[in-house]
């Protein structure tokens, strides 16, 4: 049975009419046309679909809408924009931390969650936090460098 589910999406109120069992990834990409969270496996195994729910990184492909009423959801579109990029997005572009880029929006979300909890992560902590995320092109080292660079800038006062 469809029902109305109201939540915060990228800082604005949103509401959708869907089954409680509908998956957040389908709603984001299908109903709301927000394409930043990507379909990679549909089974919580790759991290391509990661979004923040109340600040924690979760798999949108394995999150049911029924659990989201009143929660805050942030996708990569909500992190920043080309004009006002999040320090993570800016650092990823500066270091060209990407090849095909399919993994990047999920990784950016995972990194954003990490930096909230730990503003000065070591390389091992960054690797551990991102370990869920797969990248087939092999840009791991650049990604970790970019996360460390963004962390440094946020600590120095860059708005995140």
């Amino acid at each position, binding site marked *: 049975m469809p029902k109305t589910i109201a939540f915060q999406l990228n800082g604005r109120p949103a509401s959708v009419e869907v089954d409680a069992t509908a998956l957040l990834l389908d709603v984001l990409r299908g109903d709301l046309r927000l*394409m*930043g969270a990507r379909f990679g*496996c549909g*089974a919580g195994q790759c991290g391509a679909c990661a979004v923040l729910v109340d600040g924690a990184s979760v798999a949108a492909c394995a999150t049911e809408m029924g659990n989201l009423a009143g929660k805050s959801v942030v996708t990569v579109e909500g992190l920043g*924009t080309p004009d006002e990029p999040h320090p993570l997005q800016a650092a990823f572009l500066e270091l*060209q931390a990407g*090849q095909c880029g399919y993994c*990047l929006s999920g990784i950016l979300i995972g990194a954003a969650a990490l930096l909230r909890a730990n503003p000065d992560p070591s390389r091992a902590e960054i690797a551990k936090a991102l*370990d869920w995320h797969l990248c087939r092109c092999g840009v791991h*080292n650049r990604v970790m460098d970019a996360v460390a660079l963004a962390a440094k800038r946020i600590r120095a006062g860059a708005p995140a």
Partner: protein
Amino acid sequence: MSLPPMLAANPRLDRWVGFEPDGRARIAFGRMEYGQGVGTSLAQMAADELDLSMARLRIVPAATGDIPDEGLTVGSMSTEFSGPAIRAACAEVRALFTAAAARRLGCAAADLDVRDGAFLRAGQPTGLDYWSFAAEVDLARDATGEAPLKTVDQMRLIGENVPRPDLPPKVFGAAFLHDIVLPGMRHARVLRQPGPGASLKSFDEAAVRRAVPDVDILIDHAFVALICASEADAARAHAAAERAARWDHARDVAADLAEPASLKTLPHTDFAAGAPEPETSNRRRVTATYAKPYISHGSLGPSAGIARFEDGKLTLWTHNQGVYPMRALAARITGLAPADIEVIHAQGPGCYGHNGADDPPIDAALIAMRRPGSPIRVQWRREDEFGWAPVGTAMLMELSAELDASGRLVDYTAEIWNTAHTGARGTAVAESALSGYVDPGPQPMRLMPDGSRFSGGLLNVIPSYDIETTRTVEHVIFPPPVRTSSLRSLGGAPNTFAGESFIDELAEIAGQDPLAYRLAMVSEPRGRDVLQTLSKMCNWPHRGFPGSGKGLGLGYDRHRNRAGFVACAAQVEVDQDVRLIRMWCAADAGLIVNPDGAKNQIEGGMIMAASWTLKEQVKLGGAGITSTTWDDYPILRFSEVPTIEIELINTRDPRPLGIGELSQGAAMAAIANAVAHALGARIRDLPMTRDKIAAALLA
């Protein structure tokens, strides 16, 4: 002067270059960007030859009719082959305009220079630029190839780290084919036929409709598609359809065919080349067998495609390796004339060769032609990409060598078993489900310009050393037990893994240091350079003793035995598992158009090679592949990636030699040799899992 082959095939200059009223230059090339940065490198070359800034370029989106036909974007050869074409075309355009400007100004062409499209005389503006008299210079003419290319010291953009224009959208939101939404678009999934000979025995349509009431079910012979209003509905309908279908003659693949050793039991054709069998001699003879299993491309996003059929015309959206080959494939399967098919390229996840990308557009086309009007989007599932996309073939490599009294390698035989490395090119998995399908049998052999047979299996099958006598035997298995096709480097990297492991074994038998043993067999100075550079980077002389649990190993090859030179080293620690600590790479790939992009590619290749070496193996069974999730098919993760240092040398050599596949073989070999050094025992069959480590230590 002879034209670069891609320019000879598409000689009209206006196919490549044009000047648009808004002050930009239109540049078209036939190579597909799929995250490897080729679009950026080719644009840099165009801008440099035309003396334009990057901001002046408008790169024509890839679509049939709009770009030159350069076939497939494969084999790490885009800058090597497409580069000269785009450079020659742009240089000629610049020369034509310079000549025309000189006529207008009444001066010699040699007096003029171009800066960001404006013509200067003695450094002063002339008031002329490409756009001011574009109408007077007719580019609807064939290239002559007579305009000189810039020399290395004239280059301004080639050699610079120009950032990739395709990257920003990917960190802010929609960027991929997967993200395209067309008006009226419907979402479909195909129920895959369990093997080419399977026929649909029964299908409980009512059960599928109970799951998704408004599903449109299309059944044509063994081709079953579920067409829905949303992706979520299509997923539900597909899940119900899987339970609702009964099949006859489903394929049943034996699980042990996943092991490379099984290749020897399958039907094959043999090709021998090189020197005759060696005479019996009292030279020392050594043999060893190496194996590499079937490997998945493992693209991070399952493939997708869109098709629309309207008024007898088919439009396809694809993220594959070439819009023209896609059109040829669609024409063959649908029976439409190529002229009635338009193919539009959009960005996709990295493919690393022939992954599933060709298939969803064909699925979608077959559906769209039976449901004209609406665009049909087919998104493969993770299970489809792992289960039905072609995989890289397994290989078995039996190597033998004869050493002279000093231990020098003088006679080398490589006997390999594999399926055709490019076997599934030009096919789609949906084909066999259609009525009237006839198995085409083995693909006709591709011939090289010199008339020899092209075999991906033989790339780098002979190690890149001065060896007096060599011979090869290739056994090509047909039919393959599973759909196999091009995977990054084809046989090149696996052969270098085997050959360079073997060289280390020979060095040990000869009682020599592996680096010194190699250097004694490399006369080519550029090869020596990369080995010596690598030796400094990894502090080779302080390698430590074998069997300590810590190892340092190296690998070397010349890509395809004719292009770039590369040496890699790996430092590992081994207990139950292999831990990669650091890796190094010294590479000479000739002219480097974009050094940062080149390093990105080289490093990515090393990480993928590490993942192949340590973790990956496709598992077989039932209708085909059983490793259909990331849990069944682990790849290297963030916490497992080593730190990597790369040094590029000879980057101002005038010829670019290709980067995309360069590092993989040397990286695989470096890891294998480092593991052998750490263990004091050698693992010859991949992947180097816990079981194999334990077995090697017991052997």
